[in-house]
């Protein structure tokens, strides 16, 4: 009743895919025979070394700042573009297609590639990381917001036209209140992602707690690494809590 002959084929294909992927990734559970090594390694992480805590906190603020700035500037630039990239508000077909193309182009470049380019061009530090996060987020948020615009209720827009409001203004005024909570929700998620991205960008010289984590790791200061990781976890959870608090208040 639940299973059709077609399903058997799907299952076989999946099993083959899993097998091929395991071969390609050298998936091998027998490696856990040396599990003791892992425990030995992790035991070097403790006790934590608090001596560099003030510097670590300073670096975390740098990470927060660059994640916030990158994602927020991305949002500010993405907002107007998303209106030209939504079929129901685009001024013309030509503008619609070109803005969609620009957005998907920006999205297609991974932040780490952007980071490598900017860090090489503009020297090391958090500023190139901000730009990398911003560019990628213009692409991502632009697409997400244009989809929100496309699925917004056309009724209020029609009413704004009927009262004689100017066309572009009618769009903004009737759509933004509708999509605002979802825009914020997307934004906070992207902010959280930006924190994680900035850690990776830190590994290639983008500053912040990510760079410190990488340096501590490479110099075998595992008792500092553990504290870095703890701070990062606390930071991500705090941003998540703050985000859901703001969303609740708006919705």
């Amino acid at each position, binding site marked *: 009743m639940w299973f059709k002959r077609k399903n058997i084929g799907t299952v076989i294909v999946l099993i083959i895919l899993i097998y091929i992927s395991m071969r390609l990734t050298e998936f091998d559970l027998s490696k856990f025979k040396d599990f003791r090594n892992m425990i030995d390694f992790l035991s070097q992480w403790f006790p934590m070394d608090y001596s560099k805590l003030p510097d670590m906190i300073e670096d975390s603020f740098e990470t927060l700042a660059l994640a916030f700035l990158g994602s927020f500037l991305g949002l500010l630039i993405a907002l107007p573009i998303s209106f030209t990239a939504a079929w129901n508000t685009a001024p013309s077909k030509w503008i619609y297609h070109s803005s969609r193309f620009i957005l998907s182009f920006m999205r297609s470049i991974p932040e780490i590639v952007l980071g490598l380019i900017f860090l090489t061009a503009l020297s090391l530090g958090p500023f190139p990381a901000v730009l990398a996060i911003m560019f990628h987020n213009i692409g991502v948020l632009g697409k997400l917001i244009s989809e929100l615009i496309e699925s917004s*209720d056309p*009724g*209020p827009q*029609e*009413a*704004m*036209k*009927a*009262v*004689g*409001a*100017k*066309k*572009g*203004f*009618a769009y*903004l*005024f*009737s759509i933004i*209140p*509708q999509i*605002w909570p979802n825009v914020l929700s997307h934004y906070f998620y992207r902010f959280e992602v930006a924190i994680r991205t900035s850690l990776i960008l830190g590994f290639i010289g983008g500053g912040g707690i990510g760079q410190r984590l990488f340096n501590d790791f490479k110099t075998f200061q595992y008792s500092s690494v553990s504290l870095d990781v703890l701070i990062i976890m606390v930071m991500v959870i705090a941003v998540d809590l703050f985000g859901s608090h703001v969303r609740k208040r708006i919705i």
Partner: protein
Amino acid sequence: MLEIKDLSVRFQGNKDDALSHINLSFEKGEFVCILGKSGAGKSTFIRCLNGLQKPTTGEVYWNNHSLFDMNEEQLRKIRREMGMIFQHFNLVPRLTVMQNVLTGTFGYRSTFKNLLGLFSAEEINRAKETIEDVGLTDQINRKVELLSGGQKQRVGIARALLQQPKVFLGDEPVSSLDPGTSNHIFNLIQDIHNQHQLLTIINVHDVHLAKRYATRLIALKDGKMIFDGRPEEFDEEKFHVTYHAASNQLDELPVH
């Protein structure tokens, strides 16, 4: 005042006209109700009157000016003289009653002032008075999505009134409301109509409601006008022709 000449609308990909060769003229002071089944072309017709819908052929003249020869800016100036209310109210969500009603002034103000929400004391007072007229003073600072259907339509009416319109259009304004509320809304529209000496044109599903309030009835069927006259002339036979399909067709029953 408002003249419709040979108006036809055909939607892309359709074989039949949604609206076919309509000729009509309306004068100030008339309370017109348009009857017809769903899909008869009522909505399309009323949306042509303020240019929300462009006709395939034909013209709408507002004080002898053709709506569809106008540019966007000129059409906008005509639209602000026509208040419109909708079946699904079309209020801007998340804004309060007051904020929604104030959008009725948008046609008269600069985009800059609109964006910043800079309203004059006169506009604010007028909005307050209008909200009082429709009986929503106690809800003035509530968000519109918290209101009942009838209250939402009152907000819609207040918004339209703030335009200081000469024409009042209603696209099925009571079709999503219960009968009692529908009566209240129609009473309110009639009061406003009489007080401001408007031209009122409303689509209605309910024949009895239309007969009670209208000074003139128009019936559409399959995009064609099949009746135009005084309410008392719309008899049982006309009712049948309007609402019942040809004998070999089964169709939905009308709402009485």
